[in-house]
């Protein structure tokens, strides 16, 4: 077994995660965690859909922000994809997508305030970076032969419209639809920083202990996501896109003086602002590094590694739930329901709920990240096993699982896992806003203390960390010759 590089890499990551568990803080600190969890489940079981009219407004705003943000992101992402072969464009896109939606929202909040533009840009900017990368990969894979056969003198645009786009249209549409779903999740969690979407109402009902209201919101959100194939129709899409900007709400007007001050004063490192020169700057930077950046980086990496392995273990445990090689239709249907709930709950909301119930430590974050990402990978792998035909006399039960299925899907499992590595790290950093000591915690505290210069430095560090993990993940995938496709 040890002679397989995939096994050796897996064991290495497992060992790192186990070591991480020893240094990580994974205590449950609330007095009655199970009673709180029970009350929460009772709340979900007895949802109250009619407590306030705010619920429907929040749902509408969530959809509106999601649509406008994803539409702008996909439009500009497509334009960027056309010039994606240029190195500066690639670096720019890697940078804007390495910064999480919530960080973008926190930045824009400082100068646009609670204006709809804040939420729209917070989704559109990182999504444009992601769309640019994936669209360009899809375009690259299109068959080059038809465009070679066009009569010389065909304009580049006509050639693109006829020989390129139709070939990738289905993939582009599928991916954009998938991203729209992600956009609705992003839109929902923007509420946690104060925008008028679902997260805002979830947080306020939770803090008042109104679990039935919170449950109603979660159920509506699942219904919204699960029914997307019904209400998102190509024919209706133009109508949605035209209408969405009018449902973003008024917010507060932008004070342009704030915008100017933010760029010319707030984000300039304070020693430079106060004329302390380079000496002041380097001691200021040293202070930021030692007191905030390094502990933040350390905790982010530890939590990411633990969550990555937990995600992997959960995916491996979860995929038989929907695989046709195990159990009957009843088990598979309930497996589907479980995985749909796990993957359509944004990890941020999962982590928020678990943190309220178990108290602040890394445990809720690990469980939330593993549930969400494990739900996604488990679903993809389970679907993949359904395409496998086993011989009629194949063993059953655990032997079937360990001898027939896992070896067949292990490589693509690893491919998905390493693909999501960067995503898990992005989320880990952001979960700091909830009070876990990852980079997001230090960014959030710097903003609370009106030290935007510190916040910007920490956001830049977070972005570089994400880019680093992305590069490393791609390196490992290439080393192990793992195929990946832009599916998740």
């Amino acid at each position, binding site marked *: 077994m040890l002679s397989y590089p995939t096994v050796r890499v897996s064991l290495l990551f497992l060992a790192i995660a186990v070591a991480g568990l020893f240094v990580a803080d994974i205590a449950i600190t609330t007095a009655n965690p199970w009673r709180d969890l029970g009350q929460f489940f009772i709340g979900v079981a007895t949802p109250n859909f009619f407590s306030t009219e705010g619920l429907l407004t929040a749902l509408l705003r969530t959809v509106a922000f999601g649509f406008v943000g994803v539409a702008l992101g996909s439009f500009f992402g497509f334009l960027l994809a056309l010039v994606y072969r240029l190195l500066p464009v690639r670096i720019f896109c890697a940078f804007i997508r390495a910064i999480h939606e919530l960080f973008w929202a926190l930045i824009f909040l400082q100068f646009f305030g609670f204006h709809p533009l804040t939420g729209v840009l917070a989704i559109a900017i990182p999504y444009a970076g992601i769309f640019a990368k994936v669209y360009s990969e899809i375009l690259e894979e299109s*068959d080059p*032969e*038809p465009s*070679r*056969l*066009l*009569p*010389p*003198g*065909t*304009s580049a*645009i*006509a*050639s693109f*419209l*006829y*020989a390129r786009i*139709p*070939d990738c*249209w*289905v993939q582009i549409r599928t991916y954009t639809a998938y991203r729209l779903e992600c956009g609705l999740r992003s839109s929902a969690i923007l509420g946690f920083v104060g925008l008028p979407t679902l997260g805002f109402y979830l947080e306020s009902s939770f803090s008042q202990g109104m679990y039935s209201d919170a449950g109603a919101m979660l159920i509506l959100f699942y219904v919204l996501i699960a029914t997307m194939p019904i209400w998102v129709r190509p024919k209706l899409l133009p109508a949605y896109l035209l209408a969405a900007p009018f449902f973003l709400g008024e917010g507060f007007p932008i004070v342009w003086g704030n915008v100017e001050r933010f760029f010319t004063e707030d984000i300039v490192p304070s020693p430079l602002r106060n004329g302390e020169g380079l000496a002041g700057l380097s001691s200021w930077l040293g202070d930021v590094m030692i007191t905030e950046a390094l502990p933040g980086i350390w905790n982010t990496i530890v939590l990411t590694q633990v969550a990555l392995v937990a995600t992997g273990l959960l995916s491996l445990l979860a995929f038989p739930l929907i695989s046709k090689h195990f159990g009957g239709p009843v088990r598979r249907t309930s497996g589907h329901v479980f995985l749909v709930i796990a993957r359509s709950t944004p990890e941020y909301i999962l982590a928020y709920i678990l943190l309220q119930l178990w108290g602040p430590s890394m445990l809720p974050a690990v469980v939330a990240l593993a549930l969400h990402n494990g739900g996604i990978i488990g679903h993809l792998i389970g679907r993949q096993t359904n395409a496998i035909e086993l011989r009629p006399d194949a063993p059953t039960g655990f032997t079937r699982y360990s001898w027939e299925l896992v070896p067949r899907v292990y490589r693509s499992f690893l491919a998905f896992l390493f693909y999501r590595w960067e995503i898990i790290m992005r989320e880990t950093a952001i979960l700091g806003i909830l009070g876990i000591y990852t980079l997001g915690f230090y960014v959030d505290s710097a903003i609370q203390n009106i030290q935007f210069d510190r916040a910007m430095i920490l956001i830049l560090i977070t972005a570089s960390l994400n880019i680093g993990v992305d590069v490393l993940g791609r390196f490992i995938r290439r080393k192990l010759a793992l195929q990946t496709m832009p599916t998740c």
Partner: protein
Amino acid sequence: MSGFAFNDLSASFGDKRVVGPLSLEVQQGQHVALVGKSGAGKSTLIKLLYERLTHQASLVPQGLGLVNALPVFHNVFMGQLDQHPLWYNTLTLIRPFRKDRDIIGTLLNGLSISEKQWVPAASLSGGQRQRVAIARALYRSAPMLLADEPISALDEPMAHLVMKALTDQFSTSVIALHDVDMALAYCTRIVGIQDGRIALDQPASELQAADIMALY
């Protein structure tokens, strides 16, 4: 001018020379059949010629190069994308003009696939796909034809129909063919390729099928 003369045609994959060096001269009005074993270098030679003759030649490659997601009509229309301004091409993508619909409809009718005009290329059979690629080459109406096994997936009556249409419309052609009888029936000159070089080059009228079989 629609003949050509090239010296030093050659191509390699890695270290392995697959074509040439060879010289080939084709005069206007000649229909040249390239014959020879699979792997002799016929396809590579057609590719080399197309690289040099892009402006004057319609190509039917072995892979056909259809856009699977587009209907047959648009795949054929692509043969004249250079003839129209961008707005015209873009509108055609959404809703073709009657004039073009009629012309392409007639063309497809001649190849017995007019009923497939609005069907995506992806859902066609092998023989139907081949005829779409041929229709595209005919529609482009360049002075010369380069074709690589254009009738390999067609039944015999259809193969005759296609070879006649191709040799009627194009005044000059170079066609790689497997079928020796077809080559003798429709082409005026036979060029036999063996290990990347010309092993036979004679007017079709002076050859029998048995003379060509020596190459195989």
